[in-house]
Each structure stands twice: as C-alpha cells, then as structure tokens.
C-alpha cells in the first residue's frame, strides 16, 4: 500500500512510524521548515517540504498513484480541502482525516470524508464511558461501513433485564456484542443473562439509536439521552 500523509505533527509522524513497521510505502508532507528539518534525518526522502493543500505538492508526493490519503494537519479547513482534492481530482480510494475541533465534525460528514478521527471526541467518549451517570455513549462510528458501536445501560424497567441474550427482542439492525459488568467484559453469548445495571456494547446501523434506547432505557426520552451524549456543546 502507498499512503500520502499530510502533516508531520505528532499524529502524522506516528502514523508514518507505524506504516514503516507494517512495511507500507508512504510519503509525509510538512510545511513548517523547522519541523521538516527536525524530522528529515529520520524520514529522509519520505519527507517532503511544502503546503499539502497545493496540488503540485500533492502531485510531487505521488497522490495520483496512492491508495490512501491521511490528512492530519492542525487546521480543519486544510484537512477538508485535502480530502476534497483527493476525491474530486485524484480519485483516491480512501481518505482519513483528523478533526481538530469537534465543532467542525458536521463539515467533514457533509463532504463525505471516509473516516474521521477526533481526539477530543474520543477522549470525551472515554470519559463518559468511565462515568456511571452516562447511560448511553457512542464509542465509534464507521461511516463507510455504515456501522456504529455504542455502549448503553440496561435499566431496571428494560424488558430485556433478566433475560438471556437469545430471548431478548432487539430492534432490527442491532447486535449485542459484549456485556460490561463489574469492570469485566463478557462476550454476549446466547445463554448469557442481562442484569439491570449492565452496560452492553452494541453494533448498530446509524439511525437505530432511538429504538435501542427505547429498548434498554424505556423510561427515558431518547432525544434527551442522545443530547446528553452529544458533545457539540464544546467550544474552542
């Protein structure tokens, strides 16, 4: 695989190192001279100096023949433009982009970036996962695969409480994969019985969240639960 990475910050550099270990071919584009000078001894000719939103720089890096573009600069507008250029002009099969400010996530979604990674959003999910008061935590969204992973609590009044996995009635397009109980994770085998207070990890198709919430937290309003889990109140 040949990967073009734009941005040699901490994220870009570590992606590059991982690709080296995995034996993949890559090139990293960096526009800050001091950062370029610092990393040149390590990355040698796999580091290119220039503005990765300039098309001639992308072409010099070999974007025309690449399998994947990773846009991980510190500027969201640059990452969006790189992703758009890769798709519109170079037919790159897959683009992964970094979202620096979670408030810009809707823009990446609007413009069909294949996958986005937002450190702040992930951190918040992890924190919510640790907080007992959060009954619903979206953990991972795989856009292209049309799949989400969420964590949800089983309430006392859930019709699924005290039933075995095989016997619970789930909305279409939802799969319970694991049960988190007292700090350990159990695989959700058919005979495993759900207890009130369990957290279950579910795979689901996007848009099924409300049905899922109705099924595990029947006394809560799905809109409220989702609003509580959403992080779009974060500001810069």
């Amino acid at each position, binding site marked *: 695989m040949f990967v073009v990475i734009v941005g040699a910050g901490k994220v870009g550099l570590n992606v590059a190192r991982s690709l080296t270990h995995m034996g993949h071919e890559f090139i990293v584009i960096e526009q800050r001279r001091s950062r370029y000078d610092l990393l040149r001894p390590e990355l040698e000719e796999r580091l290119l100096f220039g503005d990765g939103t*300039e098309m001639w720089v992308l072409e010099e890096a070999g974007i025309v023949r690449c399998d994947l573009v990773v846009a991980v600069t510190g500027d*969201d*507008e640059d990452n969006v433009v790189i992703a758009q250029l890769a798709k*519109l002009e170079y037919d790159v099969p897959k683009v992964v982009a970094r979202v620096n400010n979670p*408030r*810009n996530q809707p*823009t990446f979604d*609007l413009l069909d970036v294949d996958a986005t990674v937002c450190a702040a959003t992930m951190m918040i999910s992890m924190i919510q996962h640790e907080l007992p008061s959060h009954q619903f935590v979206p953990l991972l969204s795989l856009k292209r695969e049309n799949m989400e992973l969420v964590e949800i609590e089983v309430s006392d009044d859930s019709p699924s409480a005290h039933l075995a996995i095989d016997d619970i009635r789930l909305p279409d397009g939802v799969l319970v994969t694991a049960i988190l109980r007292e700090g350990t994770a159990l695989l959700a085998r058919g005979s495993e019985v759900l207890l009130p207070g369990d957290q279950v990890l579910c795979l689901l198709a996007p848009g099924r969240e409300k049905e899922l919430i109705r099924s595990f937290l029947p006394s809560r309003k799905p809109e409220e639960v989702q609003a509580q889990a959403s992080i779009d109140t974060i500001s810069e």
Partner: protein
Amino acid sequence: MYVIIVGCGRVGSSMAKQLVDEGHDVVVVDEDPSSFRLLGDGFPGQCVVGAALDWDVLRQAGIEGADAFAAATDGDNTNIVCALIAWRAFEVRCAIARVYDPLRARVFARSGLHTVCPTEQARVMMMDAVHACPISTTGE
C-alpha cells in the same frame, strides 16, 4: 437581498459598504473584531465575531435566510470550506469563494462551487496590457 460576507479585509469591507449603500441587508463575519474598523463609523449592517467554519456562527449570521454568501478571508481553504458549507449544508444558492490559487479554484469550480480567482484575472489583465504595448522600432 440578504448577503453574508466572511472576512472583513479590503475586499470584504468594501463589498459590505457598497451593498449597504445599494440598500441591501448585510452581515459581516470575521474572527478578529478589530477588522470591523475598515467598515468605518456608523456601518448600518450587522457584524458577527467568530470562525466562519462554525455552523453556529453561520446560523447566528442568519445563513438560513441568506440570498448570497461571499467568502473573502485571506485563506483560500477557509473560503472554499465555508462556501461549501453555505452551499451544501444551508442551500445558499449563490455562495462565492475567493481562491487565489488557480488550480484549486478550477477544481472546486468544476465541482459546482462559484469561485473567483484574482490571480487568474490579474494574469488575463496583465497579459492584455502587455499585448497592448506598442512595439519599439528602435534598434531595427
């Protein structure tokens, strides 16, 4: 007409003043509140401080009812992305981005975005000016 202008620099501020003089409703968005000085005293339009990539800032500027949107910050990519948001997310039919880089301007224009490229226009005008120069006969 209700017009949103992003970037209160030389181009954005003079567009805003002219549109107001023509009787239009104008909102100017800029991250830097001191840039609004360019609008002069008594500018009757609205000024919004914030990043134009932020959908909430655009909503605050009234994008849901805007007839036109012009992005003229000093960053090509900022202009492209906020014009894309205006056009694709808020369905402002007339969303215009100033893009200095002719290559990027062409790619996004081809995808349907309205782009204005000052570099390309300067090239055409400079070429016309050069072509119009009389050829010296001295030395023949």
